[in-house]
């Protein structure tokens, strides 16, 4: 279980769009193995008498009414964009 491989670390980094150096790969492989080993404790607990849980809390059904509330100021939403034009975020050309 705690045996995450170097290849898996490289794969995860790639999916997260991270460029890791050799040293970092080494480092994160070791870290991740330790994290997984720690979390392994949970698997030792006997849960045969516990109801199925969904999520970390007992909370359920937090719903919202279907009523429109407009956020009025587009300028506020766009203010931190590095680049914008005609009310839209401007980004480098995306090729399909």
């Amino acid at each position, binding site marked *: 279980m705690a045996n995450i491989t170097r290849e898996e670390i490289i794969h995860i980094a790639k999916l997260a769009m991270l460029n890791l150096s050799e040293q970092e790969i080494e480092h994160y492989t070791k870290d991740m193995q330790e994290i997984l080993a720690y979390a392994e404790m949970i698997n030792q607990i006997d849960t045969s008498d516990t109801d199925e849980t*969904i999520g970390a809390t007992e909370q*359920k059904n937090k*719903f*919202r009414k279907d009523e429109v509330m407009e956020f009025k100021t587009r300028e506020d939403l766009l203010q931190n964009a590095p680049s914008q034009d005609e009310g*839209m975020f401007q980004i480098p050309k995306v090729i399909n």
Partner: protein
Amino acid sequence: MPKEDYEIVIGLEVHCELSTKTKIFCSCSTEFGGEPNTHCCPICMAMPGTLPVLNEKVVEYAVKAGLATNCKIAQNSKNDRKNYFYPDLPKAYQISQYDMPLCYDGYVNIETEEGEKTIRLERIHIEEDAGKLNHDDYGRGTFVDLNRAGVPLIECVSKPDLRSKEEVDAYLRKLKSIFEYIEISDCKMQEGSLRADVNVSVRKKGATEFGTRTEMKNMNSFRSISRAIEYEANRQIEVLENGGEITQETLRWDDISGKTFSMRDKEDAQDYRYFPDPDLVAIRLSDEYIENIKNSLPELPESRKKRYLEEYKLIPKAANFVTSSKYYSDLFEEAIAICKNPKTASNLLMSEVARILNEREEEPDQIPFSGKELGELVELIDKGTISSSISKKVLEELFENPKSPSKIIEEKGWIQISDEGAIKEVVSKILEANPQSVADFKAGKDRALGFLVGQAMKETKGKANPQMLNQLFLEELKK
């Protein structure tokens, strides 16, 4: 080995936009159109520190969809994050559902040439739509509009039970029709509120294993879907026949060239790292909640069909046709409340309205007039004010310029001539001009009568009352 020895296997993932007033996790409007980024807020723009709250109508609509497609409803369900990077997805994950969808194990029945066929549904889950990328022609870059980001969708995943493009067409139309009946979506393909990912594979007839499949994403017209399936199945058969192998991949259908193109290579195989969204809590539905929704469902097409057969004595073909779309069915019911003539009303829909829509390349939801106009039109036929040939012209006019049919015939001067004196005059004129036909009729050729009536119709531009014409011709000829 010829094409006929292969079987095409198709599965569909249909995305359908729900017609709630607000988005799935925030109170922004879902209204179509609007200036870029005006139906947005910090939540659907993924600003740090914001939290999503699920719209109760989204759950209700999805449960409705599940019940109307014979699904089981999950009493315990949750939202998961589907992680991927794309500029139209501001959070870099889409909130969807992974292993605990709201609805599962359903089915719908479709009509095929070999009779009724059951198409199984694996699941229906809720998720959010992405934004829109706009590209300009000057190479200045790409522009992101997040008005659609967070609009609620249901995704309906079928089992690979479909075997031809005709079956796919029937299945899609059936789903569309059901969702229209239960009023959870306007299902406008032209606006992208109904779209499908199409999975296609082929295998030799009799084989038990499925072939490797390819996927075509985001198709939003019946015609493109049909063409794409045909092209892709043929392509796969050709590859196999030449000793090649099918690669599992996502393809892009290009409507202009009529071909599919590879979108990404195997190396980027999808790995979405789904995990439960910690910002959202469990969805737990009581029996009572589900029962209430079941009781609130409107009458579904199957039940309407039964009623039309029994109460209105429609022939099965007509009942099938009228119930194939909520828009036909509602139009029909509104019309017969006025004209009390189900047979003529259904005939006009099935023959004329369907023909005109087909010519205009439109769908029933685009019919610009209501059942009131249709009902009035049937009444005008029944009263003998217009002939059935004129009624076709009135329908065409109703598509162009919808208003009261009696106004139309008055303005166009299409009122049927039922005045005996006027019709007698025409009859005499036609008899005089066609002595040969008169002789033929007297010699026992009944067909000559049809010709004479036709001539009289031509003379009156279709306005003469055909029953009266027939009768008066017979009277004159038998003198």
